[in-house]
């Protein structure tokens, strides 16, 4: 008890010390702000430009002086986005695939992460090592055999390979690793109580360990969703019909008869795919960044 309050006090002290020992002189602060502002330009400008260019006439995109604010916003490009392709349909494809893969990955990696961390069974360490090797196999190495597998099962141009393979295959291994690290740190006493109440293994997992694992699950959910939303090579290889396409693939399809990009339409479509995700991120960025940082912290 006393040691606890002591450590709390020293934390307080530390915070005070920090501001004194490490506070910067005024000129240094100004220099740092200036540096960060300059560095921020390449991070902000493309997104800003994407929105403004999508609202400008096509000619402006190639002009030597890009306008930072469109003088007369044009919405016609946005109409065309939906006319040239089943864009709404592709949006739904991307969304439902990402949601299913995220939910499935959370389930698979929570189960196996829990077992590898907290259940003693013969060969557990060896099996964990085997599973971990999945992190070292780039998707491109296995794409030809997986393509053949999908083809021989008659699942080309369906969404099945885009859902099943990531949930059970190499992409979920990182999730298993993160979940295992989290469950390893969970105090054993918590489960002892549940055991006395007569809970079985699944009961312990479901009603005690899993609810506590919310931060780790959130991290797994975030990176799985982003990765699935980003996925490009696999849809490119497995899908052929436009109404089956996911967004990254759809974005590259706004081309003219000669295969040249129709930039203005492409930028409008890109804006439509980027802004919702960006908005969610900006609202939830604290949890978002903290969740991702946690996956690395415990690695």
């Amino acid at each position: 008890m006393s040691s606890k309050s002591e450590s709390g006090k020293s934390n307080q002290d530390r915070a005070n010390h920090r501001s004194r020992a490490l506070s910067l002189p005024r000129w240094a602060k100004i220099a740092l702000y200036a540096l960060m502002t300059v560095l921020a330009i390449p991070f902000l400008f493309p997104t800003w430009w994407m929105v403004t260019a999508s609202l400008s006439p096509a000619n402006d995109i190639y002009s030597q002086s890009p306008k930072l604010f469109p003088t007369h916003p044009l919405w016609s490009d946005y109409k065309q986005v939906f006319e040239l392709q089943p864009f709404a349909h592709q949006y739904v494809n991307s969304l439902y695939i990402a949601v299913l893969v995220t939910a499935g990955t959370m389930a698979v990696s929570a189960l196996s992460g829990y077992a590898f961390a907290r259940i003693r069974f013969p060969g557990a360490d060896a099996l964990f090592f085997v599973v971990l090797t999945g992190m070292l196999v780039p998707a491109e190495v296995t794409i030809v055999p997986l393509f053949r597998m999908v083809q021989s099962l008659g699942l080309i141009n369906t969404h099945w390979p885009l859902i099943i393979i990531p949930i059970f295959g190499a992409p979920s291994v990182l999730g298993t690793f993160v979940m295992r690290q989290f469950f390893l740190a969970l105090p054993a006493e918590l489960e002892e109580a549940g055991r006395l109440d007569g809970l079985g293994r699944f009961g312990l997992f479901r009603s005690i360990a899993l609810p506590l694992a919310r931060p780790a699950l959130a991290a797994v959910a975030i990176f799985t969703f982003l990765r699935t939303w980003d996925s490009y090579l696999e849809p490119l290889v497995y899908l052929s019909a436009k109404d089956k396409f996911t967004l990254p693939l759809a974005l590259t399809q706004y081309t003219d008869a000669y295969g040249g990009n129709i930039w203005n339409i492409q930028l409008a479509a890109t804006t439509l795919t980027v802004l919702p995700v960006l908005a969610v991120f900006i609202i939830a960025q604290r949890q978002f960044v903290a969740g991702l940082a946690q996956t690395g912290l415990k690695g």
Partner: protein
Amino acid sequence: MSVSTASAADTQGGGRGHRPPPGRGRRDHRMTARRRDAVAGYLFVAPQLLGWAAFVGWPVVAVVWYSLHSWNLLAGTFDWAGLANYRQLAHDPALGAVLRATLFFSVGLVVLNLALALLLAVLLNQRLRGTAVFRTIFFSPVVVSLVAWAIVSGTLLQGTGGINALLSKVGITGPNWLHEPGAALIAVIVTQTIKNVGLNMVLFLAALQGVPEELYEAAALDGASRWRTFWRITFPLITPTVLLTSIITVVGSLQVFAPIQVLTAGGPGNSTNVLVYDLYKQGFVAHDLSYASTLGVLLFVIVLALTAIQWQMRKKWVVNE
């Protein structure tokens, strides 16, 4: 499994052939609990293990197997070819350019990405108001999908695009970025770095915030400069994170595909035709699946070798707590 049941039954001398009733003896009870645990363990990991076998283990074996065959999709033939594909690989006139592009791309990306990530993390770790805003800005491209980012960058990198317009304002005539060999490679590296550097930045930031304040105070009392403090105290303490991020970034750099496809399609010439892109073109554009498999084996060997080297080198520079 059956052996352990039998021996458990034997030691109890009773329940021959069928399960001992619960609460029989202490040892017996423990055995069944342990066995039940083992069954639960296997059931819990079964989805992951079966998935690994079907989608990782088997494909890795298959890719080696395919690389030893000559495979004609149109004629439907699949014949043993021994090392013919590997001989073709050794004599592939494009291989030198592909490996060079892969090497330059990876080295450029890893150096730029890690250096920038560390710089940004150190800046954001200062006691300054408003760092949360800058953190959001530097991280924001991470949530933009790779293809979207590449498309936007592509329009900016046109000869008459926004980047050159900005450069001309300060009196620099920029190259036609995506159509000149050296410039194209640099453009793709920078595009990809800005897109993803936020991830490494966050990992570095988390590591920096784990460095105990007392060490900084001690250094300040000793009158050590900030530069010296960073390299003598901060950096050694975050080396485990540096190792983690460098492995992730090296492996990731070898897998870059979408930006290459969208921005340059491997050109001009073969200047951005990295191994992964070549693999895709051979397999899914030229439909030479056995040669693509051979390139897949090469990629796998490179990834394994680099990871092993990094893992070995960690003893030299990673400081363990």
